[in-house]
């Protein structure tokens, strides 16, 4: 049993201090994930992260074993989807077309910034799949459970997302060079 699983078990037994440790342990990664999902909207990402932790506390007894962060990100992603529908933040259709507007040439050389901009142009499901599987290091199985997707669909999201990102980044680079 890892540290988070042990803390979750203590929290389920009514130990709020144990839950406090879980919040401190996972807040950075969860807020980072939501920040990417909300395309850098700090206030919305923090609101969603707070609601995620409150829901996690309410349902802590339902957490069995495995990746605690995976379980948290499942709550966070479903909260994000609800909020995105409510606020009409963006099209949730994963087959939506990608706009071909390139970033400003002077910033296009900043690779990290390019990645964030390209990520923001992906459909939410692809963005979430890529972030969980790469930047946050979840296994495909864990990410599929978090996003409530069949494993095959998750794998196809990852591969399609990667292809679209590569195409966007190459197109921008070519535009800057020319």
């Amino acid at each position: 049993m890892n540290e988070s699983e042990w803390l979750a078990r203590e929290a389920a037994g009514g130990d709020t201090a144990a839950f406090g440790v879980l919040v401190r342990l996972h807040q950075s990664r969860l807020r980072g994930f939501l920040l990417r999902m909300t395309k850098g909207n700090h206030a919305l990402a923090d609101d969603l992260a707070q609601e995620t932790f409150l829901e996690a506390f309410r349902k802590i007894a339902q957490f069995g074993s495995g990746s605690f962060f995976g379980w948290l990100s499942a709550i966070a992603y479903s909260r994000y989807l609800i909020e995105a529908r409510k606020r009409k933040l963006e099209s949730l259709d994963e087959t939506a077309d990608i706009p071909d507007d390139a970033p400003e040439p002077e910033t296009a050389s900043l690779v990290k910034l390019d990645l964030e901009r390209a990520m923001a142009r992906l459909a939410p499901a692809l963005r979430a799949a890529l972030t969980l599987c790469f930047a946050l290091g979840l296994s495909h199985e864990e990410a599929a459970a978090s996003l409530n997707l069949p494993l095959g669909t998750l794998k196809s999201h990852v591969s399609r997302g990667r292809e679209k990102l590569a195409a966007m980044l190459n197109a921008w680079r070519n535009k800057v060079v020319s």
Partner: protein
Amino acid sequence: MTIDDLLNQPLASVADNGFSTRVMARVRAKERRKLLAVAAAAAVCAVLALLFLPVHAIGVEMNFALIQIARSAAASVAVAAVILTLLAEREFIRL
């Protein structure tokens, strides 16, 4: 740098800046509200019980039952056994 290298870069660390404290304050407030709700429900139940139960009759019956128990030889033996067990346990712990 390949696309996989880019994607594998960890997300930038987000400073806590009181976030955990705010979350825990909301968790504790929620817990307090839950406790208050339970206490209020218990108080309402107690008041209803006092209003609708024949408290005096129950008291008389309890009195009678306690006197009967006190007079019973079996109850006396059971109480003696409990006391002796506790004393023996204390002695055992001391040794």
